[in-house]
């Protein structure tokens, strides 16, 4: 499977409608790809909250309205925040039968919404076991953070550093939600408490945005990027059903399969994109992806191994924290960034000669995980 076209909108609080965002990202991907829109055989659209926030479902037919007369198969995939990496994964199964697949990720979270976004996002947790007991999304990750900090004896300081590094990367990414926002450690430390121990700067923002990837069964140009593996794995949805909160089994399982299929290991990776919906998730991801041993994530952060000039740059686009988190588009935005880096087209945030990149995209609190490994 080869990626030959990528497109995305800016992330942030945007005036465009859901379909307006989709069209902008589709147009960008078609303009980037050697293919024409008529060459696309199947479209998979990823979206999480079109129903509860925008009052709009049947999004595959909404996409058909943007492509009048094409009448091709279009389907929607929803696995909470992992929707778009799972959509990419599903594309791999279509490629036996079709040549060219377009994958769209989109979320419209600001403006008029049917219910408040926090309430809608909580639908990613178990309604009976979690949500009805007050475990909104930040609270769930706060429990993960509390368990992690207690088990490994680290304090909030390391999370502040993760937040800071992500914001610094976003300052080099003109499409990022917080491209223009200058951050200091003082701002991070003094930000309002959300759910202890997590404060505002531990949380990714509510963003609008869309990202589109075009994949094909063959290589069309030397700008194409090879998908070595796409794997998904799941875990029980409620935190009450987990043995351990300091690690996500879905990430470990999907990563193990992906490394096996790609024929590479964590040490071969040049760059990674991890799902830092909350800063603690980045720390857990470094360990679950075996970039380091359990409990050693903080050391990696303090040593600046994860910065643009470090041993293994993480979230070069700013991550969910600062690039933004338009939920249904997030996994594809990670792919967009790795493709851009592997093509050496990342401008000011370009890392030196990257060869392999990995994206980790989580749904809920580790209930779903999509892992994608790309080669330049």
């Amino acid at each position, binding site marked *: 499977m080869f990626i030959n076209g990528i497109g995305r909108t800016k992330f942030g609080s945007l005036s465009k*409608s859901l*379909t307006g965002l989709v*069209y902008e990202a589709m147009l960008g991907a078609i303009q980037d790809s050697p293919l024409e829109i008529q060459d696309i055989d199947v479209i998979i659209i990823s979206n999480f909250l079109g129903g509860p926030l925008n009052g709009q479902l049947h999004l595959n037919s909404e996409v058909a309205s943007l492509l009048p007369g094409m009448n091709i198969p279009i389907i929607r995939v929803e696995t909470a925040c992992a929707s778009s990496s799972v959509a990419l994964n599903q594309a791999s199964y279509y490629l036996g039968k079709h040549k060219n697949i377009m994958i769209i990720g989109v979320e419209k979270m600001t403006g008029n919404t049917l219910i408040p976004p926090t309430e809608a996002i909580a639908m990613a947790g178990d309604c009976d076991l979690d949500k009805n007991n007050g475990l909104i999304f930040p609270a769930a990750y706060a429990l993960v953070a509390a368990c992690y900090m207690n088990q490994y004896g680290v304090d909030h300081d390391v999370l502040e550093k993760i937040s800071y590094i992500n914001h610094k990367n976003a300052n080099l990414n003109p499409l990022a939600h917080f491209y223009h926002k200058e951050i200091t450690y003082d701002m991070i430390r003094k930000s309002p408490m959300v759910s202890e121990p997590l404060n505002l700067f531990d949380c990714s923002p509510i963003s609008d945005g869309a990202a589109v990837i075009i994949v094909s069964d063959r290589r069309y140009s030397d700008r194409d990027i090879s998908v070595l593996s796409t794997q998904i794995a799941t875990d029980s949805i409620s935190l009450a059903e987990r043995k351990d909160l300091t690690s996500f089994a879905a990430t470990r399982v999907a990563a193990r399969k992906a490394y096996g299929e790609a024929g590479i290991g964590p040490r071969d990776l040049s760059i990674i994109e991890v799902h830092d919906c909350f800063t603690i998730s980045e720390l857990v991801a470094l360990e679950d992806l075996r970039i380091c041993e359990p409990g050693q994530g903080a050391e990696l952060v303090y040593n600046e191994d994860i910065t643009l000039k470090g041993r293994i740059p993480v979230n070069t686009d700013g991550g969910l924290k600062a690039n933004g988190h338009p939920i249904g588009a997030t996994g594809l935005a990670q792919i967009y960034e790795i493709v851009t880096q592997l093509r050496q087209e990342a401008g000011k945030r370009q890392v030196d000669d990257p060869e392999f990149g990995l994206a980790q995209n989580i749904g809920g609190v580790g209930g779903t995980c999509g892992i994608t490994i790309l080669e330049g």
Partner: protein
Amino acid sequence: MVNYCEKCDKYWNQEIRTCIFCGGETRTISESVYRVLSSTKVHVPSKGNENVPYFVYLLEDKHGQKVIRKSDHHYQIGDEVNLDAAVVARYAVGVIGSGLMGTQIAEYLVQMGYPVILKTRDPGNVEGIISKIRKRLSKRLQEQEVEECLENLVITTDYADLSDVDIIIEASKEDLDVKKDVFAELSGVCKTTTIFATNSSSLSIDALAAVTDRPEQFIGLHFFNPVHRMDLIEVVVGSNTSDETKKFAINLAHDLKKQPILVKNSPGFIVNRLLLPQINEAIRLLGDGIASKEDIDSAVKLGLNHPMGPFELADFIGLDICLSILEVLHAGLGDDHFEPAPLLREMVEEGKLGYKSGEGFYTY
């Protein structure tokens, strides 16, 4: 309004500038004349479509582009309809006063498509008013819709600019003398057909009508805060208000998607005559040490099923406003029951006016 790519012969209802099929620029086509292709009469009410039966039409323009439209009018298949002409001719409205209610009424009117001229006293206010209205509209409308609304808004400091409006909605300070001055001034400025309405929450409609040159065209239109969310308008009928003026006010309220209720001129009309004694009594309960303000609020919210308790609501309305309405009720109805509670007077004298001053019964 549709966007069209001539080369590919593709149409979009979405705002699309570049054709994804050829990369060329699209152009916007705006038609107003449509032919009725098909219709259905709907008998089942739904949210947003409470009034049944109504008609839904499938219309087609000369390019073959179709739109769906709802209407109360009955058309035959093949009829030509002009959607621009079908839009109700909106009255031009003059709003007096740029305080809390004046700006909200103006904001809601422009949102509903009415041209509005807002009169303020100080030219220094103009920028602030526009940015306040833009900010509030942005919370519920798309950017482009906000700009379209604002095109309908003119702010002036000169009464002469109101000479040609169809109706005045006065929302200046809740003070009989101030309002009398405003209407006396307007009488000399506005065309003879202009209807005068006041948003006064308690003052006598007849006393205000008496200073104008058109008491039969004088009426009360009492909006509630926040205007865009509160569905009631108290239509206050004075002793000289004509039936035409009454009808005009009721139609206007309906067109604004509000529920009008009719009430004869009397102190506090309906809502405030019922509300303020309750707030006053709650303050007395508190003053007498019978219960805490939190518990009184809880009792009213949970026991009477009100969305806000009396102290929360009093802070929201403004304690100075509460006091002045109670004084009007007391003076007008002569019942000691309406005499403002001593604690309320003290708080107003101390400058604790509620939400707007940062402190009332609660701190904000």
